[in-house]
């Protein structure tokens, strides 16, 4: 009885909040685009769009893995350090050819993910603690492998970083392909469904006989692999390996993209479209403020406002 009464009163409000959480990010992206078209000179140019897209690609790829981790009611803080580890491995193994170097880097990311997943699934360490440990360890390891910045001189890597087909940079194509792949996995595979069930109610998933450990481990292995790919692409674009600074605070940008995109931190939901839009929104926001010569501190404040808005919209959903 009480529940019905409650529903009646706050139905409109709850629906508003849900719509805001689900589609607010798209509205934000469109609004920013429109504002820029009107206000920013030279905004509408292929070159500008290309730059924005290339800049957002690594964050986007990392955020895909983060969305899976958050959907499983976890989080992966090690992604930034995995990017650093990846760049140092690329640099280290480039002598064997770019293909081998990239493969080693991605395998490195997967091993880190395996460590994260095992700590979480078998030992029962909380995801935030387990991945924090790996975050510190990987940054250290990356610096041991490659103590300082090193130029990456390799034609394949260079073309990966700046080449394009039909005017679309490889980086962007790869990011789009990965986003589609992850979206497909979440929507259409057994793994995707099991992941959502585990994130929503772990005890129920366990009693329903779901392979909870296996799913959690795969989540973190995939997240590690995606972060490593992002590291490779960032290396290719910068034509340099800098394990000290590459991927710094990347975990926070990725979490921001995921949360702004409407994936709730309490698990059970993964919105890939929203995550992509979330990453784009933050990128556009930064670019807009930079183009209007506002200091970087303004960008951070603007980001904070967006995050608070997203969390506020998600708050309603938390109470069910």
């Amino acid at each position, binding site marked *: 009885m009480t529940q019905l009464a409650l529903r009646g009163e706050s139905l409109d409000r709850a629906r508003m909040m849900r719509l805001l959480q689900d589609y607010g990010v798209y509205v934000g992206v469109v609004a920013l685009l429109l504002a820029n078209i009107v206000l920013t000179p030279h905004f509408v140019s292929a070159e500008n769009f290309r730059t924005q897209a290339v800049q957002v690609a690594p964050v986007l790829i990392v955020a895909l893995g983060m969305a899976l981790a958050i959907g499983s009611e976890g989080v992966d803080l090690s992604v930034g350090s995995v990017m650093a580890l990846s760049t140092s491995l690329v640099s280290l193994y480039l002598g064997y050819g770019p293909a081998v170097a990239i493969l080693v880097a991605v395998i490195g990311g997967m091993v880190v993910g395996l460590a994260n997943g095992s700590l979480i699934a078998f030992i029962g360490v909380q995801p935030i603690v387990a991945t924090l440990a790996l975050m510190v360890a990987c940054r250290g390891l990356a610096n041991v492998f490659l103590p300082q910045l090193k130029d990456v001189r390799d034609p394949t890597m260079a073309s990966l970083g700046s080449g394009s087909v039909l005017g679309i940079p490889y980086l962007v194509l790869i990011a789009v392909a990965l986003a589609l792949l992850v979206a497909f996995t979440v929507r259409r595979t057994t793994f995707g469904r099991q992941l959502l*069930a585990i994130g*929503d109610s772990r005890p129920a998933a366990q*009693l329903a006989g779901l*392979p909870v450990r296996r799913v959690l481990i795969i989540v973190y292995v995939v997240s590690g692999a995606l972060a490593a790919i992002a590291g490779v692409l960032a290396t290719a674009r910068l034509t340099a390996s800098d394990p000290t600074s590459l991927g710094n605070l990347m975990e926070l940008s990725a979490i921001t993209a995921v949360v702004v995109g409407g994936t709730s931190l309490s698990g059970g939901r993964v919105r890939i479209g929203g995550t992509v839009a979330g990453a784009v929104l933050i990128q556009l926001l930064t670019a807009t403020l930079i183009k209007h010569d506002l200091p970087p501190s303004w960008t951070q404040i603007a980001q904070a406002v967006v995050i608070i808005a997203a969390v506020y919209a998600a708050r309603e959903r938390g109470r069910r």
Partner: protein
Amino acid sequence: MSEPVLSVQGVTKRFPGALALDGVDFAAYPGEVHALIGENGAGKSTLIKVFTGVYHPDEGQVRYQGEPVDFGTPLQAQHAGISTIYQEVNLVPLMSVARNLFLGREPRNRFGLIDFRRMHREADEALRDLGVRVDVTRALRTLGVGAQQMVALARAVQVDARVVVMDEPTSSLEPREVQTLFRVIRMLRDRGIAVVYVSHRLEELYEVCDTVTVLRDGKLVHTGPIAELDRLRLVSLMLGRAMGEVQSEGLTKFSGEHDAGGEPVLSARGLRIRHTLHGVSLDIRPGEVVGLGGLLGSGRSETAKAVAGALPPDEGEVLVAGSRIRTGSTPAAIRAGISLLPEDRKAEGIVPGLSVRENIALAALPGLSRFGLVDEERVDRIVDTFMKRLRIKASGPHQKVGELSGGNQQKVLLARWLAMQPKVLLLDEPTRGIDVGAKAEVQKLIDELAEDGLGVLLISSDMEELIEGSDRVVVLKDGAVVAELTGDEVTEDRLLTAIAAQPQDLEGGRR
């Protein structure tokens, strides 16, 4: 007798949608051990929370030492002299025994620092008083649960408690520790302290308590000396069934007898879990509904969970159609054909944020997929079949399960398991908290499933449901099988008698 040290008169407490206490009177006298008993939802814990300051009564009065009181917080009640010892000891595990005993009132030396020597000496004396010998400098968590509870008790005595409330203190104790606890309880009683003792173990009540108060559905049903009440009468008061009451057949939707023949589809042999199960064995044949009877805490849910792999047993084996399966693994049990409908539907059953469709398909998903890709058409077909067959009322297959009524949530869970084509269904309180109409439907469904040849284990606190629904009832008590009722024996009288029976030689008994 003297004045009661703690009493409540006409206490009523309402929660949204439920009347937890309805005009309850209760009085604890100094030097008395007072048993407070009742089944799930009877209002025991609410009553305890009313006089320990956690809840405020909507109506009625709490009197302590003759004065009306209104404790704002549990801390105030504690300062006034009402100590509560919960099932899980609420002390600081990493601090030493002595620190725990003196927490918040440590003896100081003249510099205002803790006088450790005095503290250790006094702690040692206090515990020795209770007949407990431990090194008081050790961290509390290195002690056994029993010893920890003694420390909690010692603390209660030290702070000059006039009333000590114990909520199922023996649920995790060894038999030897139980005896120590009882000795301490008697010691407290002799010192003029009133002890309020909550437990489901009848033997303990008769051994240590002087007075008993029985609650049922938030109402006081009996209070008086425990010696004047025989066990059978006590059990019937708790469960609300009078002995020899005229059988009112046909109240539930069960038809009754099934043809159960052949080899058991499920056999559990000697299941043991520390403190919980002491060698439970049972058989279920295809087409048979086996009821699991017993009071709260007798190990019914634990038995079902152990069989379904959700609780790993320390010993014992589970056989499905004659072949042994790996215990302690839900996937193994499910593969073998065992399905469990858990007691806590909301927390352990449904996945609230997913749709009806995803919830039904959840367990069967690997079988409905090819190369890891879900075959949406097959899922749709199965979901459609079961939504129709079980008459699940939802706006459609894509409605979230969290939005459905309890009865429909339960049907979704049944559909999830039926989609697996199980051999055995373990149903733990399948009709609790669902409305009358849905209840009848679920009962009818259980009947149909048994007729189709499924083996069913039915756990229910609803006596009528258990008696009318089961072909056979296995009665559990303190984690062991005490009786098995078959055929004409499946009556409420026989069930009550079995539950109330004196312990003779319980398998792996507790003493």
